[in-house]
């Protein structure tokens, strides 16, 4: 047997990410959440993307690409399982939304029950509770709910390493329901932080 190692290729180049417009500037939901984590929850451990080293950016990009690939897989799977174009109006990729000066790009919106659809791929254990161990996901989802005026979401998580015990890789979908107060309080937190950073007026 002869083994020849090929040039390494980033996951990012393997995952086909549909191009979309992204407004310039830091006032994006994900950036605001990262900034809050860096300032409060994990001081100094969530530096702004622009401050990361080249290797850190590459590593982060590979994780992110895993999430994109997961979204693509799920989408193709759902389309193949059913009528495809017949349901084209049901699942909407809404693109970038802007509210109070903050931008966000939800994955999907299910127009049938006005439910946010989010896809996540993680190397953390499935034994961890969503709240608080995946706090940043929940903040992000509540922000998108605010932008879309919906109060529930379907979260489809691919745990790459499952529970790190006997499970192997796991897929777990959740339905999350929020009160209006939870969504509004979450939005106040995000806009308040963004305002304190001078990212919005």
């Amino acid at each position, binding site marked *: 047997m002869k083994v020849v190692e090929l040039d390494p290729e980033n996951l990012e180049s393997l995952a086909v990410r549909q191009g979309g417009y992204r407004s310039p500037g830091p006032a994006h939901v994900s950036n605001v959440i990262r900034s809050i984590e860096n300032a409060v929850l994990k001081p100094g451990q969530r530096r702004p993307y622009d401050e990361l080293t080249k290797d850190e950016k590459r590593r982060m990009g590979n994780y992110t690409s895993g999430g994109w690939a997961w979204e693509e897989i799920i989408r193709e*799977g759902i389309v193949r399982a*059913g009528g495809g174009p017949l*349901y084209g109006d049901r699942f909407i990729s809404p693109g970038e939304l802007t509210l109070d000066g903050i931008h966000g790009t939800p994955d999907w919106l299910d127009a049938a029950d006005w439910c946010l659809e989010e896809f996540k791929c993680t190397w953390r254990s499935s034994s961890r509770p969503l*709240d608080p161990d995946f706090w940043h996901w929940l903040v992000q989802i509540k922000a998108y709910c605010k*932008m879309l005026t919906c109060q529930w979401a379907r979260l489809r998580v691919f745990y790459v390493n499952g529970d790190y015990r006997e499970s192997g890789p796991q897929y777990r979908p959740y339905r999350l329901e929020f009160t209006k107060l939870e969504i509004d309080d979450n939005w106040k937190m995000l806009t308040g932080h963004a305002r304190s950073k001078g990212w919005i007026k």
Partner: protein
Amino acid sequence: MAIQKKAPPASARPAQRAAAPAGAARPNSHGAVQQYASLNPEDYTQGGLLDDVDVTVASARFCEWDYNGSIDHPVLALCVSIDYTDPATGKPAQADQYYSAGELSRFIPSDDGTHAVAVAGAKGLAGGTNAALFLQSVIDQGFPVDRFGDGDVSALDGLVAHINRVAQPKRGAQITGKTQSGYDATVALVTKIHRMPWETASTVPKGGGRLSPAPSRGTSTARSAPTTSRTAAPPQDPSGDADMREEAAGILLAVLQNKGGKVIKTSIPPGSFKLLAGNPNRSEILNLLADDEFLGEAGADYGWEFDGQTVSASA
């Protein structure tokens, strides 16, 4: 928060990612105009911005415009084709000036471009747009507003006037009064009317115009707008909140029409989302349409009633 963990569905529902919101699919009703040279500072490679010059309005028409491809969906614009004397050469010249007039979800140009046709019950052009600033400047200089009749902008054809560029007002967080290159955004407004279209006597001063230099990319000095002794009145609502409410009301009226005159509050977002395709303010509008206070207060102005659960068209 309630978390419901669900088993993977036995048969997942089919889906397809919808195409990106694309107002661009709409054919342009004024295609010939779009082929003219743009005066948008962002598009300049040489030459200059028309400023401080006497002009004759050859035609004023509404059209769809995508800033020469620099935005992802066209908007409504007022295209003013003008004749003037090029001070550099002393020869007659022509130029087109586009004034943005808001989203096509509110108004679309009529087939002949003379009118902006209301979509979904919108009443008036957005007050803070460049088109509104331009029209206000014409009126401020004495053009009788009743000459526009039912909204016929071709009433300006033949107007002889002087224009100056003035700084655009800031319009909230999204529009900063700067071009994408960081220069002060300006708009050419009428600062004096020499002759109304229906007047015959020609008293138009010759020459006197100049071209201000185009902003050159890479310079650190922002180009300041020329000062004028008279400028258009400031927009009544620079933040655009009133426009947003009006737009939201128009969308809700369209939803009511589609739903037979009655819709429960929770069905408003699904019913309005398609109508908001390509609208950069759709999240703001969605939140307005979910706001009990807005639904309760605005109904009297726009013709609906809200009982806390259901919105009904007023009889």
